[in-house]
């Protein structure tokens, strides 16, 4: 099957039921997308499909032919997406394992709602578990990313929504 990942076409020969997560990680070699639960409970495996956040651990890759898949590696070419910049500025990460999913969930939220309220952030981000407890800094960083987007920080070569 053919997959469009971060703007690049990949021809992969995998079982039809194989979740996108493992195609990305074990076949294509993009390991930024993480395995956390395997049942859409934790959000570590979040990627964007045509701009919408999905859980790649329960989504068969075969369902995504013709769609644009964006992983953390494709969010920006040089780590300059406003969400990434806000995360760095806000010193959000700790172990970092969940953060690929957190960043992509936040980027998808901001694409839909450029100025989200705390309640909207809670609703959009509560599917992404962080055991290190970075939630408070995540909330602040989502607001900061919103400001950066409004002030026109450039988002170069991004394949994200």
């Amino acid at each position, binding site marked *: 099957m053919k997959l469009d990942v971060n703007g690049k076409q990949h021809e992969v020969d*995998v*079982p039809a039921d*194989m*979740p996108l997560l*493992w195609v990305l*990680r*074990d*076949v294509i*070699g*993009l*390991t*930024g997308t*993480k*395995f*956390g*639960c*395997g*049942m859409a*409970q*934790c959000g*570590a495996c979040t990627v964007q499909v045509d701009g919408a956040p999905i859980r790649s651990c329960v989504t068969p890759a075969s369902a995504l032919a013709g769609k644009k898949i964006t*992983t*953390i*590696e494709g*969010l*920006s070419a040089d*780590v300059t997406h406003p969400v*990434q910049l806000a*995360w*760095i*500025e806000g*010193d*959000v*990460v*700790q*172990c*970092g*394992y*969940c*953060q*690929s999913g957190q*960043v992509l969930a936040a980027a998808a939220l901001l694409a839909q709602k450029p100025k989200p309220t705390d309640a909207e*952030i*809670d*609703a959009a*981000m*509560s*599917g*992404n*578990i*962080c*055991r*290190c*407890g*970075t*939630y*408070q*800094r*995540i*909330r602040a960083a989502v607001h900061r990313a919103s400001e950066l987007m409004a002030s026109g920080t450039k988002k170069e070569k991004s394949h994200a929504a």
Partner: protein
Amino acid sequence: MLRKQLSVAANLGLTPSPPNPPPFDGAQDRLEGEGLERRAFLKATATISAGLVVAFAMPGAARRAFAQQGGAGPAPTSPNAFVRIAPDGTVTILLKHSEMGQGIWTSLPMVVADELDCDWNKVHVEHAPAAPAYAHTAFGMQMTGGSTSTWESFTQLRQAGATARALLVAAAAQKWNVQPVDCRTEKGFVFSGTHKAGYGELAEAAAKLPIPNEVKLKDAKDFTLIGKPTRRLDSKAKVSGAAEFGIDVKRPNLLIALVARPPVFGAKVKSFDAAKAKAVAGVVDVVQVPSGVAVLGKHFWAAKQGRDALVVDWDLGAGATLSTPGLIEDYRKLAQKAGTVAKKAGNVDAALESGKVIEAEYGVPFLAHAPMEPLNCTVEIGTDGCDIWTGTQFQTMDQGTAAAILGLKPDQVRVHTTFLGGGFGRRATPSSDFVAEAVQIAKASGKTVKVVWTREDDIHGGYYRPMWLSRMRAALGADGKPTAWAHTIVGQSILAGTPFEKMMVKDGIDATSVEGAADAPYLAAIPAHRVDLHSPTSPVTVLWWRSVGHSHTAFAVEGFLDELAHAAKADPLEYRRALLPADARERKALDLAADKFGWGKPLPKGHAAGLAVHASFESYVAQIAEVSVEGNAVKVHRIVCAIDCGLAVNPLTVEAQMQSGIVYGLSAALHSELTFKDGRVEQSNFHNYPVLRLAEMPKIEVHIVPSTDKMGGCGEPGTPPIAPAVANAVFAASGKRLRQLPLRLA
């Protein structure tokens, strides 16, 4: 830098491993974990230029520094380097501890860089290999745990930085024919009069100079980094997918293995039928190992499907009768009997005969650590030894275990520490369980293998925080103060049967079972007191879980103390203050938290406050929780936290670790619990082992007590006080005293 290393590797005829996602050009472009590249680099430095390497050798207790020479000298394969300065001025700091979120990837290099006076923007960090020189200065093995990393290495790292600086200054002084005292350093340069030279250009000459016997460390007032809020060095890699965790390791011809492990603790494989597993496309092999049956596949999905298809007949053994209600009954019976005494003063039984006597039972369940990155370990056995890539907290123990399995010497086992996707204690097993198993599978199959645990494997896999029960009794005098205190603890010993038993189990008392109880700060003010312990055994494997014994003792002690304050009709804050010694550091934390919270001031309608203070890992933490109770739901609105950890090397990290410890503790306070039925753990994944999510996140304010007292830790001390603070707040809000975690109103 990376590209240079790779090109040199190619010149040497070595094959670099497949490149990871494109590296950055910043300080964080190089992530430890690719052993081949590392070895190539070390060889390469013999032929290009090594610059300066400062290493520590530690023969016995006496530490001495020495420099390894580059250029024409022997290859600087120093297994114990702390600082390397390359000709281009890049400063590489080797981290002997594991970065698992706690921020030492930044705060420990800050310590080196401050003394070195280098350019912080040119600092590059790598995990050190496993080697005796990287041993923990207190525990004697290379490890990360017990919230000790910062204080245990603080002086050592300052000396490493100061030694490197002294050598660079000496090289500059020699070059300019001036005295070292006439030189000064700033941001990676040495200056003297009109002279100026970068560390990179001085490094090679510095490496040829004798190491000074003593170096002067900075006065605290001259610190440029230590004590200053400093952003993390690993952020960029962690928001771009470039950070390499153990689960991300790539090797040539790597197979993924999943293991069918016993469904109940202590069960053994009777027989298995691999036919269906082997019929799954992509499954390569099925091998039996001591821990179960491993299915090896070309990718995770094949190995997972193969394991699902595998048929194993288990001999369940005695563990199959285990049930949580039965266990609680057993513990209750034990708690009625006198245990092994851990702390005692006065005649407690007599004192409990008079005054107002209060009795209560506190309990906490088994818990899994559930780090976001499921356990994993990659093993490659070669002709010259074995390479292991994993996120571990116990490098040299894992190394020794692997060596014993393979019949190798420890130094033939190269442990490459990756970033850890959370640890919380689970990646520090005295049995090296997840490393030993991976080594066994690699040995049995003859393949390069990465063992990956599913979340279900993790939740069912044992090494839990033990279930604990505390029977608390106290008598109050006429003034409301306790005249007697009896605390009987029941729970499995974490250290029994481990190499730590000799050091930390004394006279039948596992120190980690009673920590926070036997040394509770209130005991000194209570004339008759006794803390005793029962350590029942079970087939369930148990382990340190963030804050270890404090995770249960703080809940029992601070909850019960709140009950005593209520019985005495006293304010919980004043009641504690009256019992704490005047110079107690708990008091400073408590007072700061109370002041910042506005203790005693009106709260929004329906809200109530509860507090707790607890010392652990040499730090003192007070927390005040503001909650409301709606129906049977507890909502936590705000937490004010104050910590006295002595010098706060990086206040941004201290704040993050307090938030982190609180969230981890809130998950346990409000949600998480493992229960047994017919020997099987009833929970399996985050749907029935819930943890705190963002929508429930209270506002947390962290305040650091300005302190020059002894340094303590930060990774764990934020966790113990939160459960009792919330439980005490729930009582204040609802009148319901909850004594069992997770807190449930119905």
